[in-house]
């Protein structure tokens, strides 16, 4: 059974169809990347799987369960998302502690203090950050908090929406290392959206290239080593990201 499976999915935003007939499968424990330029519909696919883009038709399956058109509690236990903007994805008036306790409160899970401490340690945040507000944290630290929040409910699938594109290179390296380590430790399945091909090369095993709302090619990430893409658009994208 695959972790995520999409078959012939069309997605619309405000009546306008932006994604056409997307199909792909992500195996359990696999790390899959969707790449493409802005407007290619890659983030929309992610949001549809999470239930944040309700206007979709086709077939989405998540861990054997049919996909939902809006977020719900069962979905929340299995699948979480990390967003692009570490400044926008944390509530500005809530401490790290409040952010991390909330998922536990929603699902009525006890033993909160210990769980919060454990997740903080997991994402490499010192405990003195626990009662800080987002404005007292750096971008990288905020992104760690956002990852910690996604891990609170111990999901099997993590959707990553450009998780490092707003960060400095040295911080990006830290977060990428963290994501890689967490995946190994918890056996997570990643579906990542990005425009940065080298990041894919580091973190993912397979890559789906999107252009104008369609997947034009699915290739193993090793194609990034030698440029073995068959579709002309993927080749152009590969060439544009190349750093001679």
């Amino acid at each position, binding site marked *: 059974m695959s972790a995520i499976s999409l078959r012939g999915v069309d997605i619309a935003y405000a009546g306008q169809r932006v994604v056409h007939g997307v199909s792909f499968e992500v195996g359990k424990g696999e790390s899959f990347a969707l790449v493409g330029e*802005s407007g290619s519909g890659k983030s929309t696919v992610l949001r549809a799987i999470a239930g944040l883009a309700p206007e979709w038709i086709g077939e989405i399956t998540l861990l054997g369960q049919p996909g939902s058109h809006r977020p719900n509690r069962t979905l929340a236990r299995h699948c979480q998302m990390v967003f692009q903007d570490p400044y926008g994805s944390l509530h500005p008036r809530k401490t790290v502690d409040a952010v991390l306790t909330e998922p536990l409160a929603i699902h009525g899970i006890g033993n909160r203090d210990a769980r919060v401490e454990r997740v903080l340690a997991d994402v490499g945040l010192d405990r003195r950050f626990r009662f800080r507000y987002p404005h007292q944290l750096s971008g990288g630290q905020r992104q760690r908090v956002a990852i910690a929040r996604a891990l609170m409910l111990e999901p099997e699938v993590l959707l990553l929406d450009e998780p490092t594109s707003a960060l400095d290179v*040295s911080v990006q*390296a830290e977060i990428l290392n963290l994501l890689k380590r967490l995946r190994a430790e918890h056996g997570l399945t990643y579906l990542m959206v990005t425009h940065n091909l080298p990041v894919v*090369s580091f973190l993912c095993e397979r890559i789906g290239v999107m252009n104008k709302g369609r997947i034009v090619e699915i290739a193993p990430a090793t194609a990034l080593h030698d440029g073995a893409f068959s579709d002309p658009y993927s080749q152009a994208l590969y060439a544009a990201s190349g750093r001679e």
Partner: protein
Amino acid sequence: MSLLSVDNLQVSFPTPRGRVKVVDGVSFDLGRERLGIVGESGSGKSITGRAILRLIRPPGRVSGRLVFDGRDLAGLSERDMRKLRGARISMIMQDPRYSLNPVMTVGTQIEEALRVHERLPRHAMRARVRAMLEAVRIDDPDRVARLYPHEVSGGMGQRVMIAMMLIPRPSLLIADEPTSALDVSVQGDVLRLIDDLVRDHGMGLILISHDLPLVARYCDRIVVMNAGRILETCPAGALNTARHPYTQGLLAAVPQMPETRAELPVMERAT
């Protein structure tokens, strides 16, 4: 003689814990060449660019000598400075969406940029705008000139910004992260465009960015900044042999296209 010479530039801002120097003793000379300033957020690279244009507002405080084309910028009145900005020194900002006026057509805005510095008859002005739009490789300049900023794409918007900044024919262009809001395929186009224009007009260029490999590709010389200070200056070609551990760390932290490392090297940082 150098085009711009910056000597011991310091910029400080007040915080609850006293004044903090965001730029602390930066000095460099710029000829008619392409200089890259690289650093991470908080390194003071953008503030340095703004300080050259005297765009730091109080309570920020600037000290040090800035000599542009033989004139001391600190000694100029705000009025003279306004004349200099745009006409002699131009700046391209990160995101064209915030830098263009949303209720004016693109053509009018470019004309406006020219009119402030030069008086020309109407048809000559139109011709200049047209030529400029062609120079930034916009295929259909007459149609684009009539569009509003929200009707153009990010890459097109950045080209319009470049056209607007270059039409008064400045001798120094400061580009602050000119492509970080753009898609990868467009980034190369925009940077090559800036590069060509800089060469054709014999301008000086200061390219400010966090992206070391990118800067290395489009500049002659690179200045690496961290915490308000210059750590190292080196020729762009010799970046791989950079000596400062910070520069080496920055270079190593970038994932490579054929990435085989299991873990990316991380820099020690004080929190």
